[in-house]
């Protein structure tokens, strides 16, 4: 497969890929996301208390962990450097099966190793929740985690994260964009929950629910009059089947409404409540003003 300028594309992508020293757990990879020092990798790579990053030119930096999302397996690191060769992200929603995929990383101690394949699918995988994955037949090995999966133009379409059978799974680049845009307070409901199995009336089956153990004062949940003991069943559109489903429902940024279905002291009476998310900072600043 001859692609015009492939060597240049690969070299540019290699320069945007970093080696992450993650202590005794072994090394991983990362992608320079901004010229000012933001580096994206997997949350499972960025677990050590001290993380060092090596650039393509051999320079090494101590990295600070800015944020980490274990559910989506993403972490943002920051190094004190400027004018870095940042990668160009692609819109991963436009990636189609059959497209060429390029992976770069540091597998098994080989720095900057490149492998190619094709995209097999983009979407969720059974047993891995409802989040989408870019699935490609590139060959990954330990050390590739956190590195870029790119399209034929060298634009990053995903972060290589795991291997499932013969396929490599990458977190889509759009998920990285959402991860970077998310503010923890935007996804704050203000509850502590425990999973329960709720009996269905007039049947022997049970449904999944999340019982509220605690509701923080002045939180979105408290403002919506949710109480300890209430059982969340789902959103207005979708029933919860796991704790992850609540986290997914809370994703987003800025002021927005979320409709929740719940039970209170009666398995037969379904109730609904609308929760205002992402407005806490606005109300606080308005109160201060």
């Amino acid at each position, binding site marked *: 497969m001859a692609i015009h300028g492939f060597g240049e594309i690969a070299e540019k992508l290699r320069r945007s890929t970093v080696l992450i020293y993650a202590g005794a757990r072994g090394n991983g990879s990362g992608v320079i996301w901004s010229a000012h020092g933001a580096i994206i990798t997997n949350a499972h790579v960025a677990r050590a208390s001290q993380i060092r990053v090596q650039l393509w030119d051999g320079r090494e930096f101590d990295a600070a962990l800015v944020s980490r999302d274990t559910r989506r397996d993403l972490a943002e690191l920051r190094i004190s450097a400027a004018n870095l060769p940042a990668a160009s992200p692609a819109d991963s929603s436009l990636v189609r099966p059959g497209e060429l995929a390029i992976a770069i990383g540091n597998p098994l101690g080989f720095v900057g190793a490149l492998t190619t394949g094709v995209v097999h699918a983009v979407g969720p995988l059974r047993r891995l929740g409802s989040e989408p994955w870019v699935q490609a037949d590139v060959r990954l090995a330990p050390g590739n985690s956190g590195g870029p999966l790119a399209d034929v133009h060298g634009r990053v379409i995903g972060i290589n994260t795991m291997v499932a059978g013969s396929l490599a799974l990458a977190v889509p680049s759009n998920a990285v964009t959402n991860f970077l845009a998310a503010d923890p307070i935007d996804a704050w409901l203000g509850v502590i929950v*425990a999973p*329960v*199995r*709720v*009996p269905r009336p007039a049947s022997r089956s049970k449904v999944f*629910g999340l*019982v*509220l*153990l*605690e*509701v923080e*004062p002045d939180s979105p949940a408290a403002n919506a009059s949710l*109480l*300890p*003991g*209430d*059982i969340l069943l789902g959103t207005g559109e979708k029933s919860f089947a796991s704790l992850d489903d609540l986290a997914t429902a809370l994703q987003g940024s800025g002021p927005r409404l979320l409709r929740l279905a719940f*039970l*209170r*002291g*009666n*398995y037969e009476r379904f109730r609904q409540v609308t929760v205002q998310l992402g407005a806490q900072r606005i109300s606080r600043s308005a109160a201060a003003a």
Partner: protein
Amino acid sequence: MKKGHIPQGYLGVGLQPVRLPETLRQSLQRPEKTAAIVLEVEPESPAHKAGIVIGDILLALAGHSVARLEDVHSQLHGEFIGKPLALKFVRGGASQEVNIVVGERPRGGE
């Protein structure tokens, strides 16, 4: 000892300690900061027959405050089997009370 074992009382609930909301604690004039929330109710158990559901927060059993799980167990002596005990709990933010007839813990069960 006719039965050959020590009978123990049982309610048929799965419980977890929980911190009470401060406003609720004050309105109940309750010194204890914790209670026990129901996460599971066994079918046809004494708790089920008394109408207890998941999410109910147990405050007191037989007049004794429930701050820890042990406070429930300590009221389930064999001598209470078959007798009604007053169970005070919170549902939907309001305090309620029911009588619950203590059952005998099935042998081999928990």
